[in-house]
């Protein structure tokens, strides 16, 4: 019973310590704190680490300074659940008193952080790598900025590419949550409008290991499979499809045929050649900006991946936009950050993989790269860029009215089965 003292004592000591910490930080004027949220635990721990590398790289490029002030990252972590993301963001904003917040990593986290942003009108929130359509399309927060494009935009142009390859009838296998919904919508919006047909859709739960029942249902008369799975789900499906004797060509989502999947062993690997996919970046972009970005990444992070991941790239451009705008206003965040937000809105720079700018909803308008799996001279597989589609907006090349009529991507939107 007396142990209640223990609880209260510990609480008050910690409270007092925290107050001192805040007071101490307030005295050092020249340091500007920016919160940085990524998933350092849970299923996205490895991408989360790479995200932090991307953000660190953007800061390192300018020697840790922006707008005449020294920038200090206050790093916080989530486990890819929205609850944890909001808790971590709240800690950075209310406890560590950051004035700008960068993050989070995954889609549903982004929506939750956007909702939290509305309760903190004096803080500016910049997205990390989350790509849920709804974060900026439905009920957007005026202080939430996203310089990257999202899941649906990443697939625009792939539909036409599939038709050009002669795939008129496809069968869809995708994970059953928000990000694949967006990806599938981005693919179908143009694919179905131009005469393609999706005979049926198999929505499988995230983390499915046994695809036997899905593979058994694949119709004989299709031209190709659309596979929007990620990580181990993709490897499991490809292996089992190979063992079941499947031989249809494939179209992949933005995270389906990345390096981890391309390097798996098996006969099926050969048949991956020619698989088309699309995304906001590709390993083999042939521009000096991209090559410099990769070289800088490799030079700075010896423990990093062989080449920056999607997450490192997205955190990099979001962080760079945040810091560029700080330079533009010379570090002035007064007046409810009004001038700073105007500068953010005007941000327009040439990023490693194309121009970075935002629309009126504060969402990125950018380039999508259509790639195909190709064999390199040394026998390894990589994604070769076959086409780049610039200036893709969140309405996927449709007019606002047309897009509104279609609505956000879900299991049945767009339908495309008829």
């Amino acid at each position, binding site marked *: 019973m007396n142990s209640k003292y223990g609880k209260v004592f510990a609480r008050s000591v*910690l409270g007092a310590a925290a107050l001192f910490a805040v007071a101490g930080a307030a005295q050092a004027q020249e340091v500007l704190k920016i919160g940085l949220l990524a998933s350092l635990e849970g299923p996205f721990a490895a991408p989360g680490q790479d995200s932090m590398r991307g953000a660190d790289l953007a800061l390192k490029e300018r020697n840790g300074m922006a707008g005449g002030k020294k920038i200090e990252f206050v790093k916080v972590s989530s486990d890819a659940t929205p609850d944890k993301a909001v808790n971590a963001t709240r800690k950075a904003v209310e406890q560590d008193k950051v004035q700008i917040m960068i993050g989070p990593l995954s889609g549903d986290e982004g929506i939750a952080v956007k909702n939290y942003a509305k309760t903190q009108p004096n803080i500016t929130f910049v997205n990390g790598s989350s790509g849920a359509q709804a974060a900026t399309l439905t009920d957007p927060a005026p202080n939430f900025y996203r310089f990257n494009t999202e899941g649906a935009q990443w697939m625009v142009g792939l539909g036409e590419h599939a038709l050009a390859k002669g795939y008129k009838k496809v069968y869809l296998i995708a994970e059953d949550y928000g990000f694949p919904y967006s990806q599938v919508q981005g693919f179908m919006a143009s694919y179905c409008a131009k005469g393609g047909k999706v005979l049926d859709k198999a929505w499988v739960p995230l983390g499915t290991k046994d695809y036997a029942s899905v593979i058994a249902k694949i119709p004989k008369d299709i031209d190709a499979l659309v596979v929007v799975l990620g990580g181990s789900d993709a490897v499991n499906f490809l292996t089992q499809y190979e063992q079941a004797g499947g031989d249809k060509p494939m179209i992949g989502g933005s995270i389906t045929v990345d390096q981890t999947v391309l390097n798996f062993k098996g006969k099926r690997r050969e048949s991956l050649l020619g698989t088309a996919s699309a995304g906001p970046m590709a390993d083999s972009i042939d521009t000096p900006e991209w090559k410099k970005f990769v070289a800088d990444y490799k030079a700075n992070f010896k423990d990093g991946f062989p080449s920056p991941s999607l997450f490192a790239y997205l955190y990099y451009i979001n962080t760079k936009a945040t810091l560029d705008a700080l330079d533009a206003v010379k570090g002035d965040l007064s007046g409810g950050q009004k001038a700073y937000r105007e500068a953010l809105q005007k941000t327009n720079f040439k990023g490693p993989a194309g121009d970075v700018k935002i629309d009126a909803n504060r969402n990125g308008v950018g380039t999508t790269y259509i790639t195909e799996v190709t064999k390199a001279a040394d026998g390894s597989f990589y994604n070769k860029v076959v086409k780049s589609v610039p200036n893709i907006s969140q309405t996927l090349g449709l007019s606002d009215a047309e897009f509104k009529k279609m609505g956000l991507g879900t299991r049945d939107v767009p339908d495309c089965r008829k």
Partner: protein
Amino acid sequence: MSAARWRRAMNSSAAAATTTRSVHGTAVVHPLRPNRAADTSPPAQGEAPRWLRAIVRPIRWHHVVVAALVLLYPFVATPFFTFQIGAQSLALGLIALSLTFLGGYGGMVSLAQMTIAGLAAYLLAIFGTSSNAAISLGWPWWLALAAALTIATLVAAAIGWLSVRTEGIYTIMITLAVGVAFFYLAQQNYTLFNGFQGFSKIAAPTVFDLDLREPTAFYFLALACAVTAYFFVKHLIRAPFGVALQGIRDNPRRMQALGYAVTAHRVGAYAVAGLLAGVGGVLMVWYNGRISPGTVGTGAMINILIIAVLGGMKHPIGAFIGAVVFVLLQNFAIDLVDRERFNLVIGGVFLAIVLFSPDGLLGLWQQLRARLSGRVTQPRHRPHSSTKNRSET
């Protein structure tokens, strides 16, 4: 616990209030405490009526100090500390309290307490209002709340009914299975639970112009629920039901021979714990403003067990102490060490506490106090004597 003590406890069930103090191991010889014998004398003229004295009697000065501190806390702490540390600890502590009650006093460690809490949260979203207008029925909040808590309690009783026939590790296994099954149901069912995305925009209501979403108001709501639940549990473990439950925990066969309905008592305990967990779940969903399958996943289920064990299952307050430590660690461990290694601190602290004090922080505190005061108060004994005694059945 010796059979003689149990017989004593059972024989004097009318005087349970006094006897069981020594039974559940919280009686502490206190210098400031007035002699118990004096209390039994009839009230003198002009003194407070009996009922009032009955309420006031168990209150001691440290209760007053703690009450003052938790009441003043939101006025000195920042909104962050009030809401994220204070209110979240109280909500999690309430769910852990339901496990402490089940495990510490009923000898049944259920991993499904977070599932019950999550179910109540889901039901609140389904009956009340949320972002998903197609599923939410939009009932007024009080009706949705009542329905959610009722169904959560019934489901808890059903889970109890399913698992009371098992003991020890098998109870853990069966409740784990129920919890994991619910997680996958919530993740894959779209007609009722809205799958992976769940529900958002579930806000605490505004009652009499008081917006319960405000940090201080929400803190006091959570505090009121937690304090009520705490005293409810404290009362229950001294009431005949609670004493019988502790008897069943230590020797079900003997209790059955004495004529107690063992299964009914256990199911009843599950129902009571389900109600507590349900209230905690409602607080949790109002705190987060949203619910999705991740909230009721295996990790979350085990977190509740960690909280209960961390604080100590000897006493209901352990759940709240554990929750405070847990929430503080979750929030501030990242500031202590390398960003990518902070889970090591959390795990290390848990390991250290469990290693050095099997009774959690409460046990640690009692050891410390005994050492500081230099006198032997009372030999430590555990209310959850559990498997060792159970094996004789």
